[in-house]
């Protein structure tokens, strides 16, 4: 049901596309026949993912390397990761921190990792994220309402390896 509500598209109530109209109709039906408004579901679902995230631990092999309180894990999955983009400006701000570990998708070549390090003068470690991080990434996206695949995430852990702060950039 959560997905049904998520798929509703109030922007296109009169859309010529039958799929969009159908989603809208289902969502309307649900709103009016279950006695609830869709936003209740939406907030509930969002809070659930964010709540679960607080109990998810980051892999030990990452957090052990951080060593300091200003350590963080940065997931670099964004497409707009260039020096002139807002994401790039954020990268310049954090790049001097040695305790940050950067995770990049597995298809990054060693040359691309070096290009990344060179461009932003990154002091921290850059590693391939591996498959384990994909589930975590999906949950972060749902919690942060990120629909596209092009965002980067800054995760600050608490008590060693639990996620405390999530920043999307």
């Amino acid at each position, binding site marked *: 049901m959560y997905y049904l509500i998520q798929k509703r598209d109030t922007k296109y109530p009169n859309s010529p596309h039958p799929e969009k109209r159908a989603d809208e109709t289902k969502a309307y039906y649900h709103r009016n026949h279950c006695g609830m408004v869709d936003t209740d579901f939406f907030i509930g679902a969002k809070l659930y993912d964010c709540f679960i995230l607080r109990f998810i631990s980051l892999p030990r092999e990452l957090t052990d390397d951080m060593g300091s309180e200003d350590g963080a894990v940065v997931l670099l999955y964004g497409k707009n990761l260039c*020096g*002139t983009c807002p994401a790039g400006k954020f990268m310049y701000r954090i790049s001097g921190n040695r305790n940050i570990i950067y995770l990049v998708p597995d298809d990054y070549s060693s040359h691309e990792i070096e290009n990344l390090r060179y461009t932003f003068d990154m002091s921290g470690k850059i590693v391939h994220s591996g498959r384990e991080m994909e589930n975590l990434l999906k949950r972060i996206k749902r919690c942060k309402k990120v629909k596209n695949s092009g965002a980067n995430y800054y995760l600050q852990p608490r008590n060693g390896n639990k996620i405390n702060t999530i920043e999307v950039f």
Partner: protein
Amino acid sequence: MDKRKTNLLPVFLLILPIVLNSVQGDKTILLRQTYMTLEEKEGAFFKNAADIDVYDRYFLVVDNIDNRILKFLMINNNRLDFQRSIGRPGQGPGDLELPIRISTWNEILAVQDQRGISFFDLDGNFKSRFRIFAGSISFVFSDNKIYYAAINPTKLDLIEVHSREGQRLYSFADKKELVDFNYNIVKGMSPATAEMAIFNCELLSDGQYIYLLNRRFGKVAKFSMPGEKVLEGTIIELFGKNELSKAKENRRLFLEEGYDFLETRTVPQYYIFRDAKLIGDNIYLLRDQWNFAEKKLDSLIEIKAIDKGSFELKSSYQASLSNDERFFSFSVAIEKDRPVFYVLFDTKEGYKVSKFTPS
């Protein structure tokens, strides 16, 4: 006596422009405009063209919004026959995301998009790709390497060189030597945005040298492939008062008095030239259409050919345009030992390609 005078007048009027031209040393050649017709085929239409290029008999268009490169075959000098589309939207291998520039070398097409550089053969087969993270101003693919004018305020050099595999090899073109610029002079502009404005340039290559042409200040430099500067000069004098005023205004805003970006939120685009291409011994410069004095677009297209070895003017080409035609990209080909120019226009009816032939 009077009758003889009247007979000689038309002859005199005909000879006068030729005499004046030879006295000034300027060889202005008039251009004849022909509209290229596009064959009505599925997939042949482009919504937004960011760049064009002519390679052999093929005409390539960078369709920025549809994330692809369109390849046309030029037929009978005035028809574009759609052959194929290269690349497709997406993020995987062979996919493109907002492509902006192309460069062809040795039958291989290099495409710069939002993520990096992708390589295709001219039949559209994907070869390889690598990511680049620095913002870019221009790039050229030559000698199996990518020469990339990178926006990176933390680095001293402007041009970065990468192998086909993406390995960063070396860098050259000291920014301070190109334009001695103080980042604090422009208020409210990030150093990266300021660099993008100041070092706005075109990179060209003939396989032996790299040519850097600055759009804002008209400075040109020639480098050997390993990055040693062999020649430098300026191209402002080749153009008229309009371009001199633009260069002067750019100096005032970005080098002398300063510029408040927070007030206007726009970066003025006072460019000396809009696009440049290298073919044979000449570098062709497409003059920018903006008339600085009258604050409107000129109804005139002007192309200057300069010698790539000395940066001296060789010839000028001119043609009048209809009022709503706005150009921003062009390409050059040689036909019967003469240059012909393919110019991309943005008109009220959509994009059009015109061929300009010396008359």
